[in-house]
């Protein structure tokens, strides 16, 4: 008995040692980002000091008071959130269709979906640019430099990913539950609402978080397909690298600031994952 207790104690100790080690590894680059964001440009060079020597906030105030920064931030929030919601809805419908209906060429469609994410983006920028500026043009309005353009475009890499991730989750929900609900008189929407969504909630939450993060972090398309109005925050990060010196301090400060919305979203969505995990335990 004391042996198992000792074993358990060692197990706890080992687990915590592991976690603390991993946490340190995870946090060092972020810590360094914080340190850099609180240094002046002169202080960056020379013998590296891993500690914060003082609280210096000018980089932050420069970034936060910039009106274009506020616009970029709003654009990023709107684009990522709208894209994540759109992706979650469309992916759930598509996954349900692929999982429950006998569609001709189902496996091929399923695989084709994911190939959309495989394309190396560089060569696709030109056709997308032409499409955004010429094909989708109504009078003076074009899809170029609009939030809508990015919201739709980001589906190209987020939707396939979401469908693939959800497929495993929805496939794991016993079809008998659908049938039972249908026998109880539920229609398609009823089944989705009362069976699929609750059971797929943790998977759906993870899908949503990751789609949101992918959209929030995207750079290449945003940089090339927007100009002034719909620019996102990642494109602003690249602006700090200039011919007359990279403003590392402000770059780091802005990176830290961009972490905040993601952190809030993730912490909020974690609840659903936790709920889902415990739910799985009760599910039996």
């Amino acid at each position: 008995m004391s042996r198992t207790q000792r074993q358990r104690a060692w197990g706890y100790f080992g687990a915590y040692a592991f976690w603390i080690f991993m946490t340190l590894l995870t946090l060092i680059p972020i810590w360094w980002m914080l340190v850099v964001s609180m240094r002046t440009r002169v202080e960056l060079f020379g013998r590296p000091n891993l500690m914060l020597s003082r609280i210096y906030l000018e980089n932050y105030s420069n970034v936060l008071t910039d009106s274009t920064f506020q616009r970029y931030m709003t654009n990023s929030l709107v684009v990522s959130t709208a894209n994540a919601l759109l992706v979650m809805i469309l992916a759930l419908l598509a996954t349900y269709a692929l999982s429950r209906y006998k569609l001709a060429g189902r496996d091929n469609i399923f695989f084709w979906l994911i190939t959309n994410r495989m394309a190396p983006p560089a060569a696709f920028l030109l056709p997308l640019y032409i499409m955004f500026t010429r094909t989708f043009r109504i009078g003076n309005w074009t899809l170029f430099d609009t939030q809508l353009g990015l919201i739709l475009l980001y589906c190209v890499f987020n939707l396939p990913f979401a469908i693939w991730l959800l497929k495993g989750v929805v496939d794991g929900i016993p079809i008998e539950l659908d049938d039972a609900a249908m026998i109880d008189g539920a229609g398609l929407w009823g089944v989705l609402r009362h069976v699929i969504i609750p059971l797929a909630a943790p998977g759906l939450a993870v899908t949503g978080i990751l789609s949101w993060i992918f959209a929030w972090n995207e750079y290449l398309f945003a940089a090339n397909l927007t100009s002034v109005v719909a620019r996102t925050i990642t494109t602003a990060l690249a602006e700090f690298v200039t011919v007359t010196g990279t403003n590392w301090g402000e770059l780091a400060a802005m990176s830290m600031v961009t972490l905040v919305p993601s952190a809030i979203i993730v912490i909020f969505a974690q609840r659903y994952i936790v709920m889902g995990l415990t739910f799985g335990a009760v599910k039996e």
Partner: protein
Amino acid sequence: MKRCFTIVLLIAFALVANMSLVSADDAWWAEAAAPYAGSTIRGVSESTPPSNYVADVLAAQFTELTGIHVEFETTSWDQMYSKAINDMEANTGIYDFVYIEQDIIYSYLAQDYLVNLTQFAADNAALAAADYDESAFTSFADYFKNADGDLFGVPMEAFVKVYLYRKDLFEDADIMAAFEAEYGYPLAPAETFEQYADNAMFFTAYGESMDMDLWGTTVQGSTGHPASTYEFLESIGPSFGLYNWGINLDAGSAQSANGGALDGETAVEALSFWLSMLPYAPPEATSSTWDEVASSFAAGRAAQGWVYGENAAWIATDESRSAVTGNVGVRLPVTAPGVIEAAQMGEGYIGYYDGGAFGIPHSSRNKEATLLWLQFIGQPSVQAEWAAVGARITHTATFDDPLIAEQDAKVDGYYTLLEEQGPLFAGAPPFPFHAQVREIIDPFIQRAILGELTPAEALSQAAMAVDEELARLGYGM
């Protein structure tokens, strides 16, 4: 009534002139711009201090005067290029004016992307501002002209790569004595390559012996960026007498056997010298692009080096960014014997006259309003303050402005050097395939930096690869 109005206007002018804002004829601007008031013109540029000054200050002044809105997109170097080229190639007309870095102008001209500004102003006499004069620009503007001397871009920034050295080190009595004891001649800013190498060796050893983070030279040797190729082809090469990247445009070849010079003796000598400086450069040299070289020097990590002039001003004066303020010496870059003389006679050049201009793409839908805007930023009256902020000078008259004279003293005469010796420098070779061929040369220079190839091997392979690409592009033999 009318006279009264004129007097009011005159007073207003005087006030405006006193406020050192825009001294030109405000009424003229408003009148000329009347048909376009309320419209919006869009431009794209790299986010540099001169560009940001245009975006933040000049654009607002212009809008106030004319009612024309200026939407200015500042972005990174790569993005600026790809967006401008996409726009012009696809003829979408998103941008009414684009930043043209000097070295890309001939490519743009070859593709007929740009509006001939001289011609366009002549055709639209109502739009020609009295205060704007093409001949007021420095010799830098010559590198934005076609064969007929017509201008295609309004210069907005210009600089040369100079030799920077640390005065506090070069003028320290102990250091001077130590140097003389070791090398047998007095320590001084380098004028020959031998002297440059001696200085580099000496200060690297000195830094090591004093346990200081100090090295003898800078090298813009990034192995992941075209900056290294640029330093070699545009600065080191010409100072040895290797011109136009060693490419003979008439023969369509870079190989010596066909009239090129990229694999010739001069080129090999230049590359060997430059690479021999790597051990005396700070360890970040192989990751350094232009801005990082400037940052290294500003951090006091190099005793001398080749640094772009737009950085000289902040390195010498801005204490928030530089640890060597007040100690920066500026000289012409080191050259091989005979190179300066050849440049003076117009048979060569000693380095790259770098910078950029704003031009109007043919695809623009607001050419008239944009012409007004470009003339506005090309006026002599807006230059001095802009120059003080961005360390860029494009007008000969700006050199005499008190604001610049004051700065000039702090930067050890950089502006005087630019004024007097500017013509020794030249724009990039007039190739219609600038970035294409540079991309071909890049990997070979990078592999030479890594030591995977000897200078001779790297250059002979590069010359062969260039010839292949020239043939593919239709400019070859």
